[in-house]
């Protein structure tokens, strides 16, 4: 029993599944390909089942809030649970093509999505004002490069002096492309190395070890 319960079996499963993904790519034989595709479909289904865990966690935390009457939050928790259940029931029973679902999707979800995303602009300007914590020649390079990159994106500035465009494009094509390529290369090596460590059973964070 202790063997079945141990963390060896999950590791073996991980390795087998990963090897199938790799075999499919390097040795695309029909049998392997169809097996790998089936496994990927399974993964999508399992991930979909996990959504239930998420919803359960939300409901649990917010019903705790309501039970304990957490100051300033519990009425909102009621609202959250209400909206969650309402939107879910509408979506499942009436389908997501229904007008009611679409109305709340477009005027609620999409608007909130864009509003939160656009909050960034407020923070960009304050972070620019406070600028950097590392104060040195490095920061100066960063600031100068940022200014030239921004000037390139300012249509009026480029119309004023086309040289801003040339400098900005050169920065993008040479130093930027170079640094990015180096970063892509090293990060890829890091991620492959980490993946190999997982497959060797040396990195088992997913099993809480």
């Amino acid at each position, binding site marked *: 029993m202790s063997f079945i*319960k141990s963390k060896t079996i999950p590791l073996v499963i991980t390795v087998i599944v990963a090897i199938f993904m790799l075999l499919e790519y390097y040795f695309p034989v029909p049998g392997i390909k169809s097996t790998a595709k089936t496994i990927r479909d399974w993964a999508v289904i399992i991930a979909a089942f996990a959504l239930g*865990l998420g919803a359960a966690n939300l409901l649990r935390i917010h019903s705790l809030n309501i039970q304990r009457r957490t100051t300033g939050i519990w009425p909102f928790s009621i609202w959250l649970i209400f909206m969650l259940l309402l*939107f879910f029931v509408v*979506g499942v029973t009436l389908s997501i093509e229904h007008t009611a679902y679409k109305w709340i999707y477009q005027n609620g979800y999409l608007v909130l999505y864009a509003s939160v995303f656009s909050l960034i602009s407020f923070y960009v300007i304050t972070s620019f004002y406070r600028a950097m914590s590392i104060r040195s020649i490095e920061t100066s390079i960063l600031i100068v490069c940022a200014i030239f990159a921004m000037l390139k994106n300012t249509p009026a500035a480029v119309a004023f002096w086309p040289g801003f465009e040339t400098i900005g494009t050169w920065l993008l094509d040479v130093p*930027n492309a170079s640094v990015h390529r180096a970063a892509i*290369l090293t990060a890829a090596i890091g991620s492959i190395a980490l993946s190999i460590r997982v497959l060797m059973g040396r990195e088992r964070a997913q099993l809480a070890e």
Partner: protein
Amino acid sequence: MVDLAQISGIWFGAALNIFIWSLVFKENRFYRFAEYTFIALSAAHFSVLGVKSILTIGWIPLSTGKISYIIPFIFGFLLYTRFSEYWRWLSHWPIAILVGVGIGLGIRGAIDIQIIKQIRATMKLAVFANPMEAFNNILFVIMLISVVSYFIFTFAQEGTLGKGYNYLYRLGRLALMAGFGIALGNTVAVRLALFTSRWIFLIKDFLGIG
């Protein structure tokens, strides 16, 4: 003709938009309302999509005779064993499948595009072309190597070799900062573009100016 659904939608949307933006002054009840609405809507939306994909990818093949599709259903339910103290070890198994797929696909994707193609492209830079291009290409290679050396962790930094490495490391840091600056400057444009589109919504659609 005034379309009630559309008008009410714009008012609802504008209110939520302003509630969210009120966070920049202070966390407040209106923000909290919008935040909780958003979490509820998005969790519900994804749950609906999840139910749909379980039906289309899982249930339909299963009901048409692909018995093997019973397996993901079993593994899916195993996720829920974590609520039982005795059976919770079983919940590691479905996670193991997901991690296996993620790791496998990750390795696969990284090598060609992120490593081989990038190395090949760097090798193909002309170093003896016309002076301007040669300068650019040599600068490109030097910056690339210095940034790579910044990411070397375990080699001793002593002796002549270590001294050389230290110079490269420092150059790499500077190059990295230049890269950050350029990326930062370029990022600003997209953030502002999004912000601008919200203002177009507020000014043109909601207030009707312009």
